[in-house]
């Protein structure tokens, strides 16, 4: 099996198989209240404390659309460069389950609010467009809990009725890396727009994964299997890898793939059949008679368009043009809206190049180590900016800056006062530096001789000695210059 970035192929008996992937991402709409009721959507509350009569489907209760959720869906549609459908219809998807109080889910079937669009992925070998088939709004179900009571299943309806956007991609994804990039890009766009917090741990972003395989070169798509409800990128990749290999094995053994719904078992790292096409639910979709068709006018859509912030693709373009960043650097800095904000704050008052290096280097390492988001960074953008300015104006060297950074990370201290308190100011007085250099030269006559006879590499030795004697405070640039003169 080869897994390089160009091609994700499964090879068996000299047959090369291509893997075709499509994702149905369920993104929870960022909204204070639910799609058709006024109950709160806050995560982590006591079970069944955020349930209205509508959410619990009491007799005679009726859904009333939450306009904010419509706006969020339209915003997301615009972010996905998609068609906004001015007329969409809410349908009922009928099935019985204990955590589905109405006995149907209100969703959009034939007429979704958002139509075709696309997302650009930045892959190492260039950009790739992934088609979006549609985006529709629907209600989430409640949660069945099977492991608290040995005899009974318990139901928590806090999530019942929470608004989800189902974003369906075209079967354009071809590798695990693309899946990773696609999810991250979607998440990034929605976080820029403020339409989904993208928090996978809290279940705000989950996906159903469609996988099929075909011999490389074939034009026709193979029969696909759908893997339901996978809640992390890692699990998506594991599930796809298992499922694609399983399908190849079946085909290689002369069998054929049955269209079915499968479940990914994260503990055993395998997918298992949930139900075949024959036992597929007949959801008996029909337009919900409690809700009128949703009609949006141009003015409404235009108003929303005006409020769309600069999105990652545009921001990247601007960073490259304005700050002369490399596409790679720009990508990293725009990938998350909070990172881009931090970067823009730092670079507003200090050197862009240094800002880029310090954020993607030291700061990211720190965040990784502490496993925190940039919004929780112990070093504020203001103080990082000051630190960078100290380097830029020669007050401290890059090396000293690293030790100042180490101090700053414990409580966001002002780097200027750290430098003063600890006396870390760089020695840039040429006379003092000359004294230091003279001392090193006198103490190492053999090395001086060797250097002068052509051992150029020894230059580093002298610099090192000078820096050592100055406790690292000597201005390395000046030391270099003076040393060169003295040794010539």
């Amino acid at each position, binding site marked *: 099996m080869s897994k390089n970035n160009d091609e994700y192929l499964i090879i068996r008996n000299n047959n090369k198989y291509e893997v075709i992937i499509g994702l149905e991402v369920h993104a929870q709409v960022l909204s204070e209240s639910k799609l058709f009721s006024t109950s709160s959507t806050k995560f982590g509350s006591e079970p069944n404390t955020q349930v209205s009569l509508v959410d619990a489907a009491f007799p005679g209760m*009726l859904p009333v659309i939450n306009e904010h959720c419509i706006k969020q869906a339209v915003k997301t549609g615009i972010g996905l460069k998609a068609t906004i459908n001015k007329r969409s219809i809410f349908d*009922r998807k*009928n099935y019985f389950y*204990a955590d589905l109080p109405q006995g149907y889910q209100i969703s959009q079937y034939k007429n979704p609010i958002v139509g075709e669009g696309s997302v650009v992925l930045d892959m190492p070998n260039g950009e790739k467009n992934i088609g979006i088939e549609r985006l529709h709004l629907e209600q989430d179900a409640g949660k069945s809990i099977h492991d608290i009571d040995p005899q009974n299943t318990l*139901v928590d309806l806090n999530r019942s009725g929470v608004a989800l956007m189902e974003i369906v991609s075209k079967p354009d994804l071809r590798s695990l890396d693309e899946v990773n990039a696609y999810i991250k890009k979607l998440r990034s766009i929605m976080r820029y727009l403020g339409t989904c917090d993208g928090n996978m741990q809290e279940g705000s972003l989950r996906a159903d994964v469609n996988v099929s395989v075909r011999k490389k070169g074939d034009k026709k798509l193979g029969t696909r299997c759908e893997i339901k409800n996978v809640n992390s990128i890692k699990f998506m990749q594991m599930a796809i890898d298992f499922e694609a290999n399983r399908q190849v094995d079946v085909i290689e053994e002369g069998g054929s793939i049955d269209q079915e719904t499968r479940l990914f078992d994260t503990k055993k790292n395998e997918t298992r059949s949930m139900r075949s096409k024959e036992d597929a639910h007949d959801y008996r*979709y*029909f337009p919900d008679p409690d809700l009128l068709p949703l009609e949006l006018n141009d003015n409404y859509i235009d108003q929303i368009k005006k409020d769309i912030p600069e999105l990652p693709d545009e921001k990247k373009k601007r960073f490259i043009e304005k700050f002369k960043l490399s596409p790679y650097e720009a990508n990293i800095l725009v990938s998350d809206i909070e990172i881009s904000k931090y970067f823009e704050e730092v670079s507003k008052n200090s050197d862009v190049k240094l800002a880029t290096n310090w954020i993607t280097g030291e700061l990211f390492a720190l965040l990784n180590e502490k496993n925190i988001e940039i919004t929780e960074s112990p070093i504020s953008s203001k103080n990082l900016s000051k630190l960078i300015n100290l380097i830029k104006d020669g007050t401290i060297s890059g090396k000293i800056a690293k030790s100042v950074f180490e101090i700053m990370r414990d409580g966001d201290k002002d780097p200027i006062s750290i430098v003063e308190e600890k006396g870390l100011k760089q020695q840039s007085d040429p006379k003092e530096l000359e004294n230091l250099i003279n001392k090193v030269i006198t103490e190492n006559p053999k090395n001086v001789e060797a250097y002068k006879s052509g051992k150029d590499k020894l230059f580093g030795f002298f610099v090192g000695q000078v820096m050592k004697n100055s406790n690292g405070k000597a201005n390395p640039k000046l030391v270099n210059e003076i040393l060169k003169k003295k040794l010539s």
Partner: protein
Amino acid sequence: MSNITDLKLVELVDKIKKKELSSAEVTIAFIERSKKSKKLNTFISENYDNAIKKAKIFDQKPDFKKKLPGIPIAVKDLFCTKNIRTTAGSKILENFVPTYESTVTQNILDEGGIIIGKLNCDEFAMGSSNETSYFGNVQNPVSENLVPGGSSGGSSSALAAKLTPATIGTDTGGSIRQPASFTGTVGLKPTYGSCSRYGIVAFASSLDQAGPMTHDVKDCSLMLEIMSNYDTKDSTSVEFKRENYLNNLNENIKGKKIGIPKEYRVEGMPKEIDELWEKGIKIIKENGGEIIEISLPNTNYALPTYYIVAPAEASSNLARYDGVKYGFRSKGENLIDMYEKTRSEGFGDEVKRRIMIGTYVLSSGYYDAYYLKAQKVRRLIKNDFDEAYKKVDAILTPSTPSSAFKIGEKLNDPVSMYLNDIFTVPINLAGLPAISIPAGHDKKGYPLGLQVIGKAFDEQSILNIALALEKNISFKNNITDWWIK
């Protein structure tokens, strides 16, 4: 002075406002009569003690600005009423007590009305004779062992028997107008979107509409005025200018153009109904109205369309009664087993029949041929009315193709039962307002009704036309109190 219970709603309101009667006197009078009328089986739940308490409280500090000042009223058991059991005539909700109030009953309470009880109805409003109720048959006060119509059969019976001065029903395919016709009372189905559906146990959401049932057109106007409002809790509620229906009530129909649809002359219809219709036409003409023959060519398809659309919606609306959250639950081996037992035992035969029809017509492979086709025909039926209303202001038809029938007579013949609704169903499909008023008797002495159908949101016109008819017909209901020993 005559009996309190013989007074009409507007008269009672007047007498209470003039302090000739107290709310307690009126409330107690209707409750006393109700207590003597158990044989009719009109009440599923009684709220007598609480109602008398409320009447006495009203009398201590009466607010005469209210439109129903301390007036007792019994309502169909399809309206959710806070702290009063609401069953929808079904075992599955036998012990269900809502913590909330439907918008329509809230409107009645806000105007000073006092709820004395919940009235029997066909299970989930599915039926035309009140025989599908889990709580048993209802007697028509007109004659023993006669059905009161349905699904608002408890309402029509209680009203005709004077157990309540007015009542409210719901009408999905004729459930207000047919029982009104069978009991010699007035029943109005408003335009879809006029009365809020919030808190009404749903049967078929795109057809359900609450409406008043009263002794005469005046009372009906007052009740409609109270019931109808724009309600943001119902997304299908319509914001339009609601008239002061009672104040604007006017019997002058000079120049009004009234359509007579030829498709409503069905074969095998009793002679009396034809005569009654002619009588209505004559009255219109004599009062300066103009009679115009019209055609509603798709009328024949209304009943089959209705029996696809209504069960389809019902099959989904009733999915929530699964034993999980509230209502009746049967023990089961597992979830599926519990569902099956709960719903098999909790629903009656007619409800199950309609759930099965509805599930079938929505199934993949049948959806296009049934549900989708029915929606298209529904549109054609609506277009028929739109065309007709280019020429006329309202339409006059009989309310039902026959008078009330005996209990048990049609119970095992659902198609014959469904045929009862042929004159009322098209109006629900088109979302229009229609009123049934008593117009005469058949040779058995059973009441018969005429139906006036209006333009959307033009309830005032049909009330006015109904008033003109009512004044000239001078209908008398011959009810003998046979059930009171």
